């Protein structure tokens, strides 16, 4: 099997590979394709049907679009609808937000941007923007999206709501506390799950109680420590929502709204949501170095309009409900929302909040960033 010529080849490949490795000390490279910039500038001023027609014509000549995404509804529902409507082939890379960021940063570092669109959450989009990798999304459609769904780097297409979800066979209606302080009761010991990665939720609670309700840091710390004594620490929302459904524990405090199916055929419920419900903003952006800029814009437009229905069906909260005929919100009128502090999370302070949350879960100090 092993023939002589392979020796030379292996040496060559080794030299190339190791040489590349040694020279690849991550100097932050910004992938920038002038053609994409020109295309974005050209379409930015176009509106309505004119914009769509121009984008469709250009996207068809581009032929395809490559998406890097985290959302689970895109592949089964949104992409087939997009492909059917426009006849443009879509390829998808899907991973967790951290993996998505790692891949994009590696590709950008090698000046080999592979995707046209990135779809992720607010704080991650801020990181990609800091690296100069995404193009500002400009379209007349953004006027339909409320300001609170827009960040400096993203026009949100939907929210992920974090709130307690319970198993209806184990918790009776009216039994759930209206706020987090109610979970300090020892009867909840070991029965309220929180995910070890949800430090953004913890920071949201801090911002709500201290900045909106005027609670002191000391009182907040005291309240959270007494609640944390009852926590059941878990890892992974999807897997643990299944265990919640199977009855392994009764309440998942920091679970996601979209895990409760919209058809109601389940033992899971989010009724009587605790105050506040926290929201992460997620959406799609075209890449600065996109090889298919028109198709990228066309997908971003689609994501904020026709895809809103699919996002809503999948249990997410759409940011542009005007695109959904007969839309009814899942959460009751008057629910108090707190938005993720994406600016802090995308900065060095994000790691400080992660450490604080980790300390709280392990019963150690300090439980607030120092």
């Amino acid at each position, binding site marked *: 099997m092993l023939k002589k010529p392979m*020796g030379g080849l292996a040496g060559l490949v080794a030299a190339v*590979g*190791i040489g590349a490795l*040694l020279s690849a000390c991550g100097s932050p490279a910004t992938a920038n394709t002038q053609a994409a910039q020109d295309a974005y500038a050209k379409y930015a001023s176009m509106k309505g049907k004119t914009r769509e027609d121009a984008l469709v014509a250009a996207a068809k000549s581009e032929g395809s679009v*490559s998406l890097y995404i985290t959302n*689970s509804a895109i*592949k089964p529902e949104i992409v087939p609808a997009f492909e059917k409507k426009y006849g443009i082939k879509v390829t998808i890379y899907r991973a967790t937000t951290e993996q998505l960021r790692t891949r994009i940063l590696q590709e950008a570092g090698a000046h080999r941007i592979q995707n046209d669109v990135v779809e992720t959450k607010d704080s991650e989009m801020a990181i990609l923007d800091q690296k100069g990798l995404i193009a500002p999304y400009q379209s007349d459609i953004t006027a339909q999206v409320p300001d609170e769904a827009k960040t400096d780097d993203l026009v949100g297409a939907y929210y992920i709501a974090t709130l307690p979800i319970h198993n209806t066979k184990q918790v009776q209606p009216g039994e759930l506390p209206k706020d987090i302080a109610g979970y300090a009761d020892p009867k909840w010991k070991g029965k309220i799950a929180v995910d070890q990665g949800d430090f953004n939720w913890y920071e949201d609670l801090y911002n709500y109680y201290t900045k909106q309700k005027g609670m002191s840091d000391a009182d907040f710390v005291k309240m959270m420590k007494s609640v944390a004594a009852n926590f059941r*620490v878990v890892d992974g929302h999807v897997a643990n929502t*299944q265990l919640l459904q199977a009855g392994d524990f009764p309440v998942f405090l920091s679970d996601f709204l979209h895990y409760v199916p919209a058809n109601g055929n389940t033992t899971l419920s989010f009724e009587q949501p605790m105050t506040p419900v926290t929201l992460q903003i997620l959406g799609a952006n075209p890449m600065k170095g996109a090889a298919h800029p028109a198709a990228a814009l066309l997908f971003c437009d689609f994501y904020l309009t026709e895809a809103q229905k699919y996002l809503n069906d999948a249990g997410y909260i759409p940011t542009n409900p005007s695109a959904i005929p007969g839309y009814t919100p899942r959460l009751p009128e008057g629910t108090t929302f707190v938005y993720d502090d994406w600016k802090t999370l995308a900065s060095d302070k994000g790691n400080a909040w992660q450490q604080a949350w980790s300390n709280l879960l392990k019963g150690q100090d300090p439980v607030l960033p120092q």
Partner: protein
Amino acid sequence: MSTTLADRPERPAETGPVRSQRVTRRRAGRFEAKHIVIAVVVLLLAYLVLVPLIFLLWKTFVADDGTAGLSGFAHAFPDNADTWAMVGNTLAFAFGSMVVSMVIGGGFAYLAERTDVPFRRLLSLAALVPLIIPAILYAPAWIFLGSANIGLMNNVTGFLFGIRPFDVYSVWGMIWVQSLHSAPIVFLLLSAAFRASDPSMEEAGRVAGLGGWRVLTRITLPMVKPALAGAALIVFIQSLEVFEIPTFLGLPAGHYVLTSRLYYLYQQYPTDYQAVGAIGVGLLVIACLGVWLAGRVGGSLRESGTISGKAFRPRRKKLGRARPWAGLLVLGYFVLAVALPLLILLYSSLLKTYEQPGIHALGDLSLNNYRTLFSDPGIVGSFENTMIVAVCAATAAMVLATVASWIVVRTGGAGRRFLDALTFSPLVIPGLVFGVALAVVYLRVSLPIYGTLVILFIAYTTRFLPYGMRYASAALSTVSRELEESAQVAGARWFTTMRRVLLPLAAPGVIGGWVYILIVSFRELQSSILLYTPGKEVVSVTIFQQYQDGNATLVSAIGVVLVLLLTVLVVVSQTIAARRGVRAE
């Protein structure tokens, strides 16, 4: 019948190497294919392993601003009680899992190969199925079985005796599940070694009046020491690295281990590669120590393989009155390790969403998940892609590992220990670092590697090389050096000796390694998720995505199909190998 071990004291210990040197000298000056093959394999191995290894070391000791230092270690292991508790938990878990899996895997390997225990075929299945069941489902399956609240086993004991004794959310639960998961590699490595070693030595011991325990500890186990050491090393390192079991079973009970720390670091931005790397380097030190120890243990047998020129026929020990009990043990293990998790998998694959077993669930059973699976071109395609990559990677890794093992086991060069440790290191490089290292290199190489299946082939070949090495070196070290020397004295070239003498004798171990790598290739996710090509997903990525979409029962169906597919594949490959083996004899 005399044996090699029995022969050993009668000849000077240095006879082997001296004779070998003589043979080598006799051939010195003659051009040999051996040297080219060795050079090419060493070069390839060095290239494959050094790329991620240099990346690991570079990222660990050099900060992004170019300054060198040890700050990664301070970040990864801050000097506080928390770190010590984590290290303690990790070592207790890893050591416990190693002991239990060695007892389970080794015990059953001995029963299967050396005794007339009934239901032997079930043990081969028990060695495969826990490996094939997707990792993401294995721990949850045990929660459905052993949780204090909803566990099926507790439901049964509660119904029968009014007690609920099992609690999978505990250190013991973690050790049990991890041991069931690790026992197969112990079983596979040791049964190959038992099969290859001569039982007449045990008979001689018995004839000489040794009791069963002394025969086991003085003769049987020393004969398979290289395999024992290799297996212990692998399961120990695996337990240090495993993600799913500590996070599912340890975390809710407050047990944090090394991988909890890795997960914590993965979440940070910017990714603290220095700290992630420091954990990898810590594991590397443990692994090197382990390889050194395993080498010392194996070294005592290096000069005297147990397969000698004299014919032996594997003879099984009669268990006598213990036979039914041993059979019961095998059945019990089969039920726990295979039947129960597989039944849970099969049951949940027939549901839309998981619900506790009962009459009410019967009405919800359907084959919808299987219809979806076979009609979705993406899922079917991911099976095809994985099959291509896994077969190629398993073959490449075993070819490289067999030659490298030959160098380690047979040559006297100073570099062989280094080669042994080098080829073991991919096992301890954290998946994220591994994936990023390959991306960094191949994004800058203009060959069509990044963005194709080739990068996964390279990733799997490298990552699973350590398994190949353990299998191949355990198999080769049981073959006596004198067989090769006889062939060489008779004028056979190195190639012929390898092909006609060594490989047929080491074949059970080499094929065992190939099968193992094939199976674990279907599971690899940590680097696959960073490196896969959109539109060319592999099974582990499909499983991850479907699971994230909340389609856990579809994942169960994929798991069932995987178990069937890989079992058939393994049986076919073993049958073909067995036929060739017969011809070779």
